[in-house]
């Protein structure tokens, strides 16, 4: 006997909105901020913190560029330089590149999916707190003079105790493993949110590409992050407890480190670009006044890129003396991965060509991504070839490559996303005039700094050198790069000015300032804590463009739907077809994530300090916090149907 519960659909009314406001609002003030589990608040915190790390990492780079502007300079000692380039890499790759995308995804996903929040709101808060505390941990150590100095890749044996006494490497290990917890729980949150809380009717072929990108990155992270956490944990054991994983005299294997590190490292670089590419795929079409060309191919290519991305890691190890046959396989795979990567480039170019571009600042950032992607992509393609890579590797050619892919396929899309979604987040428009200056300074500065760097590399300048002789032919090139980097920095400064000014004096933004197609534009700017007063039902990829595109007769319903106002509630839908199948009880604000975050951070600080009492205490506090968090507290979901008869 089927027992189907249907949820009545109601019209959105002011009374409903007021009631939902009371149910979902976070109390004002510091206490509210500490206990909030609102994905929008968490998303913005992620974005602000990640931008701060971008600026810090950028300043580290500028100091390095001053040292390298001319040959044989002594602005920095070699020890200082080595710590700076290590911290620069670590800050950018770990504490900026992924968290910034988590921030945008956190903010946008429930809105763009037509939902009230992520699947695990408290876990969401936890992942932010751990991220923040791990960053504070890393930089507090740096501030008192303890910093890693073996590069972000931290190769052994140089990172072993024997050659690297002192605590810098241990700080890196502990901070990174701690951050890994944040990344992992965040990834799990995204995947389950994707599977369970999309709007009714948003089948997987109607999800925005941003969602495909973050989903893929999250799935990749779930499988890849453990490799680097383990690698660092084993290193810490070697350094502090005398085990022999990497220590050669006792039979340890330096290449074990490289395998573990790069088995993580390569999927990671896709994790830090695929969501950004998704943002381009969702934002660019708005300014081309047409849907993305080749949606299905782009979605498939996103997934395929990550899958192949797990099979190319040895291309970071081509010079280590591995057998030719193994290297040939990874070389071929590294060439093959160009194909799915190219899909996005073709899709974006076709979308512009077949659309009507509006040259807003956001559009400029998105469109320039295409060009920068191509340059970064081709330099990568060149390194896929083993014998050629034997020359390229460890020279500035690679530095040029990585900055084109990182700045080109992460930072530029992020800036486009900022101009695109800042109005939604803050209710204000960013200044277009300042935006144009911002863009051009960054674009010109970036290319001035990094395009000549390809030649610097081809002319043999090695990486990770604190200075260079005057007779190697690199003097002019280095000076140009230094100048370019400062122009780029000026552009970033303008961005900060634009953001700060616009927060106070920007033009007011309506719900849909760019006349875009996706669901987040059906909410006010900024959205209320409950996102949607009635939950939408979706009938296409472009809910807000359906009347104009006339792709079919079906229409999404946005102002009529289930209210789910019996406390904090959200709608669960089936993974593939997004048919409603349960009502989820969402948690109230809670301090448990903050406490658990503090306890975990204290645990890692205690491990760094080798303090057993500290470890035991933090473990106990953490355990209690988890118990409180998980304490059964009433119905947490009601299915809409039970088994048939």
């Amino acid at each position, binding site marked *: *006997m089927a*027992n189907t519960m249907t949820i009545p659909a109601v019209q959105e009314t002011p009374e409903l909105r007021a009631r939902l406001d009371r149910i979902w609002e976070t109390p004002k003030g510091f206490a509210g901020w500490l206990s909030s589990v609102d994905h929008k608040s968490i998303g913005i915190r992620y974005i602000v913190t990640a931008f701060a790390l971008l600026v810090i990492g950028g300043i580290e780079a500028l100091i390095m560029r001053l040292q390298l502007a001319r040959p044989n300079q002594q602005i920095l000692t070699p020890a200082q330089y080595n710590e700076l380039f290590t911290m620069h890499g670590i800050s950018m790759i770990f504490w900026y590149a992924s968290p910034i995308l988590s921030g945008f995804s956190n903010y946008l996903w429930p809105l763009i999916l037509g939902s009230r929040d992520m*699947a*695990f709101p408290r*876990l969401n808060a936890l992942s932010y707190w751990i991220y923040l505390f791990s960053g504070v941990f890393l930089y507090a150590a740096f501030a008192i003079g303890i910093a890693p100095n073996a590069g972000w890749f931290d190769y052994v044996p140089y990172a072993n105790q024997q050659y690297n006494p002192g605590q810098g490497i241990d700080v890196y290990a502990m901070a990174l493993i701690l951050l890994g917890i944040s990344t*992992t729980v965040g*990834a*799990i949150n995204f*995947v*389950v949110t994707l*599977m*369970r809380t999309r709007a009714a009717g948003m089948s997987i072929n109607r999800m925005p590409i941003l969602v495909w990108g973050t989903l893929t990155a999250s799935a990749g992270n*779930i*499988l*890849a*992050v*453990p*490799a680097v*956490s*383990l690698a660092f944990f*084993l290193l810490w*054991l*070697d350094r502090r*407890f*005398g*085990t*022999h*994983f990497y220590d050669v005299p*006792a*039979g*340890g*294997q330096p*290449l*074990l480190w490289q*395998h*573990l590190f790069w*088995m993580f490292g390569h999927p990671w670089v896709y994790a830090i670009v695929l969501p950004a590419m998704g943002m381009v795929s969702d934002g660019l079409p708005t300014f081309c006044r047409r849907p993305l060309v080749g949606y299905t191919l782009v979605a498939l290519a996103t997934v395929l890129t990550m899958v192949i991305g797990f099979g190319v890691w040895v291309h970071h190890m081509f010079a280590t003396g591995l057998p030719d046959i193994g290297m040939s396989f990874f070389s071929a795979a590294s060439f093959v991965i160009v194909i799915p990567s190219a899909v996005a480039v073709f899709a974006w170019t076709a979308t512009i060509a077949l659309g009507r571009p509006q040259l807003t600042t956001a559009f400029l950032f998105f469109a320039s991504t295409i060009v920068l992607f191509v340059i970064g992509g081709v330099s990568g393609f060149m390194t896929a070839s083993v014998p050629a890579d034997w020359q390229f590797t460890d020279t500035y050619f690679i530095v040029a490559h990585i900055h084109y892919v990182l700045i080109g396929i992460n930072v530029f899309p992020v800036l486009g996303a900022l101009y695109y979604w800042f109005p939604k987040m803050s209710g204000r428009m960013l200044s277009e005039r300042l935006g144009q200056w911002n863009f051009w300074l960054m674009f010109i500065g970036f290319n001035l700094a990094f395009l000549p760097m390809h030649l610097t590399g081809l002319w043999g300048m090695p990486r990770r050198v604190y200075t260079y002789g005057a007779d190697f032919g690199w003097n002019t090139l280095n000076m140009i790069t230094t100048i370019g980097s400062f122009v780029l920095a000026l552009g970033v400064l303008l961005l900060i000015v634009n953001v700060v000014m616009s927060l106070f004096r920007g033009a007011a933004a309506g719900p849909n300032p760019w006349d875009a197609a996706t669901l987040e534009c059906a909410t006010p700017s900024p959205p209320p804590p409950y996102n949607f007063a009635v939950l939408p039902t979706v009938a296409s990829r472009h809910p807000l463009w359906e009347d104009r595109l006339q792709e079919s007769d079906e229409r999404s319903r946005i102002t009529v739907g289930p209210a789910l106002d019996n406390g904090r509630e959200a709608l*669960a839908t089936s993974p593939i077809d997004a048919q409603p*199948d*349960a009502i*989820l009880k969402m948690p109230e604000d809670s301090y448990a994530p903050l406490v658990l975050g503090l306890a975990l951070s204290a645990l890692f600080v205690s491990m760094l300090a080798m303090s057993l009492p500290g470890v035991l205490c933090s473990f106990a506090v953490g*355990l209690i916090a988890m*118990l409180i968090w*998980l304490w*059964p507290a*009433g*119905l*947490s*979901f*009601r*299915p809409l149907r*039970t*088994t048939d008869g």
Partner: protein
Amino acid sequence: MVDAVASGAEEQARSPSIARSSGWWGIIFTIATEGAVFAYLLFSYYYMAISSHATWPTAPLSLKLALPNTLILLLSSGTIWWAERQYSTGKSTNALLGLVVTFILGAIFVSIQMVEWHQMSFSPTSGPYGSLYFTTTGFHVAHVVVGLLILLALIGWVASGILEDRRQNAVSVGAAYWHFVDAVWLSVFFTYYLTPYLS
């Protein structure tokens, strides 16, 4: 996690609502990521075995303690599976019994493992093999201990009736984790104890 069971549905098949809870999918992906840790640990073992110049034990490890211990852990998977079934058909007392027996079996596993560690002729610092063995089995034991803590919570909640009133999926989530811990042990056991017989 609550499933609203239709009235008089004690006899019917386990409610499909279990598959719909967020918590269930949360533990599945947690299992995936933790499983990956062990996959990389086992990769490290095989990689070192092939490439290290260090002394690798020639004789296989003794199965005297490890084999019974493996069977104990397998049995505990059986008891928790039974407990979960009992719970889903409303038989809370049986479920409680099953959980308690699982806990005891798990605790025995940990104890025997400690004894076995003491008996090993090598240590974590004696060489790469020792480092790998103790780190891998250590990670595993840590996961078992976490499982024991989960079982304690479940036992408390089932016994006090908090869960029963609301028919939550906590037991299934806990059981899934326990099975994972068992599966990991089988891979570790195979790698360290059985593969030496194959080569």
